[in-house]
């Protein structure tokens, strides 16, 4: 329980009966907020328990033993990490611009960034597919990308990252923008007054204060990428041993009635998420300190 504010200490001390009454009256409050908040936690725990009850260690072992699922685990971890890092790299400057500067057309950029959040994910995948195959000047983006980069985008590993990034980055931008909104501009203004360039003020003053937000954006983007399914299915496909990530594995197992395997893989995703996000938060806490 927090201490009483100083203003309260000025008034005459309450009598014992009043104190007893007030102490007693907090319990219903805690019961209500604990009940409401706890009901959601209970729901999630119940879901996990149900999943655990539906599958078995045998299904779990069988899923982990499959080379394609091992490949999917590896690709999931790598692609989610890339898309999360890319999201933070993009979201930090974008969030900063939207938070600190007023300019013509800002509302439009704001709206554009919200599009991936409100659009059905499948549409993002389809739009990526169309974008890369829209003919222009006798060629298309896919062909040009292959020519300049030397590797395929559509239906290949880069498509997985792009599909994840297209959605996850929007969430990271929202997080970073809120982070910069909450950081008092006063310290930054003082740094500028003392002769700092805008970049120095950003790197010396603002960014160190925004680390919690960066870690939050990173975890949100990573988690969002992990759960991404629709855009990956359309833009990267679900090619076994190539573009299959854990979310598409769940879909494929469901498609052939392997509910136990689907649940086992889902639990694997939960475990992977808990481990990775735990590590990120741990490192983040150390960085912030």
């Amino acid at each position, binding site marked *: 329980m927090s201490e009483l504010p100083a203003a309260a200490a000025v008034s005459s001390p309450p009598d014992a009966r009043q104190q007893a009454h007030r102490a007693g009256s907090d319990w219903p409050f805690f019961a209500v907020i604990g009940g409401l908040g706890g009901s959601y936690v209970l729901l999630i725990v119940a879901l996990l328990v149900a999943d655990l009850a539906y599958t078995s260690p045998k299904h779990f072992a069988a899923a982990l033993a499959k080379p394609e699922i091992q490949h999917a685990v590896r690709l999931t971890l790598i692609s989610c990490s890339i898309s999360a890092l890319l999201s933070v790299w993009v979201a930090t400057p974008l969030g900063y611009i939207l938070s600190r500067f007023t300019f013509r057309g800002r509302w439009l950029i704001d709206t554009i960034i919200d599009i991936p959040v409100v659009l059905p994910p499948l549409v993002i995948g389809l739009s990526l597919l169309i974008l890369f*195959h829209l003919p222009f000047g006798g060629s298309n983006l896919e062909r040009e990308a292959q020519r300049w980069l030397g590797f395929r985008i559509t239906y290949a590993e880069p498509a997985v990252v792009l599909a994840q990034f297209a959605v996850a980055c929007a969430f990271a931008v929202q997080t970073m923008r809120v982070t910069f909104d909450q950081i008092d501009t006063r310290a930054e203004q003082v740094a500028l007054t003392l002769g700092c360039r805008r970049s120095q003020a950003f790197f010396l003053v603002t960014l160190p204060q925004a680390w919690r937000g960066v870690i939050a954006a990173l975890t949100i983007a990573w988690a969002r990428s992990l759960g991404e399914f629709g855009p990956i299915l359309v833009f990267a496909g679900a090619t076994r041993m190539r573009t299959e990530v854990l979310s598409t594995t769940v879909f494929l197992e469901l498609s052939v*009635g392997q509910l136990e395997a689907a649940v086992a893989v889902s639990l694997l995703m939960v475990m992977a998420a808990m481990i990775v996000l735990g590590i990120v938060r741990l490192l983040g806490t150390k*960085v912030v300190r």
Partner: protein
Amino acid sequence: MIAQNKFGSRRGSINWTLAIILASAVVLVLLVFNLLPPKQPAGKPAEGQSGQPLVVYCAASNKSVLEAIRHDYERDYKVPLEIQYGPSQTLLASLAVTGTGDLYLPADDSFLVTAQERKLIAAEYPLGKMQAVVAVAKGNPLKISKWEDLLKPEVRIAQASIEASAIGKMVHKSLSSRGLWDALHDRTTVYKTTVNEVANDVKTGAVDAGIVFDAVLHDYDSLTAVTLPELAPVQANVAIGVLNASSNAKQARHFARYAAASDKGLLHYQKFGFQPAAGDAWAEVPEVTLYSGSMLRPAIEQTIAEFEEREGARVTRVYNGCGILVAQMKAGQVPDAYFACDVEFMNQVKSIFPEPQDISQNELVILVKKGNPAGISSLKDLSKDGLRVGIGHEKQCAMGWLTQRTFDEGGVREQVMKNVVVQTPTGDMLVNQMRSGSLDAAVAYLSNAAGSVDQLDAIRIKGIPCSIARQPFGIAKDTPHKQLAERLLQAIRAKASQDRFAQEGFLWLAAEAPAHE
């Protein structure tokens, strides 16, 4: 100075920040480097195989069976398959947008029909059939054995969407036509987007019964199928399509033939609960024998050559007069397919080719030298004194037989026959003799003269309907190469082939093949 002190104390902070930024960049580069899998040493492709991976778009519901076929094919031919699984409709949209890929294997052939309408499919290979059944938990706890049991109030029913799924559409159409739909619709608890979701609902116990395809239940040990006569007409075909977009079409067809071979892919289809199609036995270079009237050779030769190249197959052609060909067949030499010059000759071997299809028609004409120096304008003119006339042999070819009938019909048989100096088994021979000057006139098909317009003129025979011949194509009922022969027929019915027939003077009769070839 103040600023310098201030920031001097923060130097560690900026270094720390930059270090983290740089570290994240290094991690990003390392992860990107690791994203692309290491190149795996591929086995040496078998002779004649390209080794280039085949891209297959496959309905997720066919995953188990296709993985089994893929295993065999990669083992036998060292050609890697890149299979993309997903919902049939989503895959169809993807391949339409990207214009890439080699093969498309949807959950049922209704998607192939849509793909054909969009001109995406080059060829189709049937794999099997599926029957609509009611899926219930093993042991059938609610004892559903007839239609009335299914409609009991205590039975919770799941169906596939009538808009989004093939089975939903088919069940709706079939039951509506017999007045059974409304009762089932009223009793349906939930509609799902795919047939697998329906099966999953029955498996989890969310519903008691679901209408699914029997093949789907192969993957569900805890479910059993109840066959109801009301659902008997609801059947779907499964087929694999070779895409027009394929950059590796020969290999794609090779795999499609492998998947559709009775002793290769179809064994897996049977094992996985499908009713397999009547596929051909596997052959590296499959072969069919085609007997064909000589008159058809110029119209079909190029089409057949292209077919052989595409399919990696061999078509042994035997061109001759239809009378001779029929005699050979009656003597026991039965080809896989027969393309007759006229219905009359197909009728003589109807027992071997029970379902012939009319492809084209051709008319008899009087061939004369360029400029028509003999002034021939009708059949009667062929009886002019001193005229050397050539006709087809009535026993050896349809053309000769038709010619005799036409003479009879025109009432000129006796007068013209006294001028006939040669009877040949094929129209080509008559054309050659006309060109060499050994004949003044000949009665042959318009198509025979197509290649000699610079030297010959054709005079139409008017008012005698029997002078027109129809050319039917039949596939032998006992052929072990039914699928290949069917595809040959599709090739002959295709647009490009139609144009060749027209160029050769034939009139087209058959419906155009559905977008193939």
